[in-house]
């Protein structure tokens, strides 16, 4: 896909009570790490607890990343405040 077909999703907050944490799981050691959504929590350890209760039934590895550290580029045009990918 050409670079110009994507736009950068704005940094609008994704949570109001606490922060949003992107969750990644690997089901077996040879599986890829996979994004499985996000949880809302004040701190990483509470986020880990929450993600673990949801995904321990299947996940070996579990990673968390603060959602506001993730820059998202997409062809989706819903976000009114999105900017050109190169800006």
């Amino acid at each position, binding site marked *: 896909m050409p670079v110009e077909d994507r736009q950068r*999703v*704005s940094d*609008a*907050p*994704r*949570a*109001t*009570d606490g922060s*949003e944490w992107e969750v990644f*799981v690997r*089901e077996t050691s040879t599986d890829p790490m*996979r994004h*499985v*959504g*996000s*949880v*809302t*929590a004040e701190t990483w350890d509470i986020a880990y607890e*929450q993600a673990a*209760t*949801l*995904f321990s*039934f*299947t*996940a070996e590895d579990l990673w968390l990343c603060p959602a506001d550290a993730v820059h*998202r580029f*997409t062809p*989706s*045009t*819903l*976000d*009114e405040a*999105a900017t050109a990918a190169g800006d």
Partner: protein
Amino acid sequence: MISVSKLLCGLDAEGDGLRYDAANESDKEQISEKKQRRPVVVWNTTRGCNLYCEHCYASACDSGADGEFSTREGKRLLDDLADYGVPVVLFSGGEPLVRSDLVDLVDYAADVGLRPVLSTNGTLITAERAQQLADAGLAYAGISVDGMAETNDHFRGQDGAFDAAVRGIEHCLDAGLKTGLRYTITQHNRDDLRDIVDLLADTGLDRFCFYHLAYGGRGADISDTDLSTAERREAVREVCDLTRAYHEDGHEIETLLVGNYADAGYITEYARREMSEERARTVRRYLETNGGDPAGERVADIDYQGNVHLNQFWQSYSLGNVRDRSFGAIWEDDSNPLVNALRSRDDRLQGRCTDCQYADICKGGSPLRSLAIHDDPFAPDPQCYLTPDERAPDTGGLQPTNAD
């Protein structure tokens, strides 16, 4: 959602497309099981609310949140939902009427082929606004009242909220809007249940939805006000009894129970005990097409910042955000192991659910409550209130149960 009036009194209410099971209960062509039915989508249009209710799942407050959708983004979202074939969009909040563009959004939803319905505390509905909403194509208004005046106003954090909500109901009825009550049953208001039905039935209201407490948002903080097993049995029995009494008097009110699929087993047992074996069989047959708790399957939620949730109460976990990709793409992403597990949860029943004769129509109840209490979404619903004999008459229910 389980329609008590349909199951016990045979009332075939007008198809408002609101019940998650509506497609399956229709006499019209059945939707094949293989085809994933499109969910009813609850859209929390704003965090802002003029009240501060104890059980609010959206943890609403008096101001909106950063990142809420503009009118134009809202319309793009509605386009997206319509393209995907979502049948119903439920405008919720916070309080959706604090959005000045609500009528515009409802109008747009109807134009693009969605069935717009509303969940509101009713206190901001004036005669003019009710008429505007009706003219815009609103198909239904569900208005929350959680007890008689004193109870409701305490619960909702504002004196006069009850009177304002009742006025809102009257304005909706005057505008010709199909209107119903939403009532979350807790220890605080269980004694008001019959009085509220009597009072509102007198105003002309004929649809009453009783919600079991969901353990999400502020609802989780007040789980200690939830009903005990004995109180829950009594409250559900009261809903059944009053529904039948109204119908016997020729007043065909519609009553529904929402949020706890142990109700399916209880109502079947009630029909057997209080009515006839034949009625119990009919009730069970209807419930077999119903499908148990709808989280992740027949209902979805999009919050005010665009995060997609498994239902409106389960706000702490999100599948993705509609600013990144379309709702349909998020909903149908079959790489998510939790969603896959929820959609085949019959295979994961545990404990007392494993020998329950109603497991096929309950499916273990609410995964959110199980998560809140047992840290495991696939554990039995802590609100299950069936007795061992009701649950597993052949074995006497050897597995532990709340009703023990």
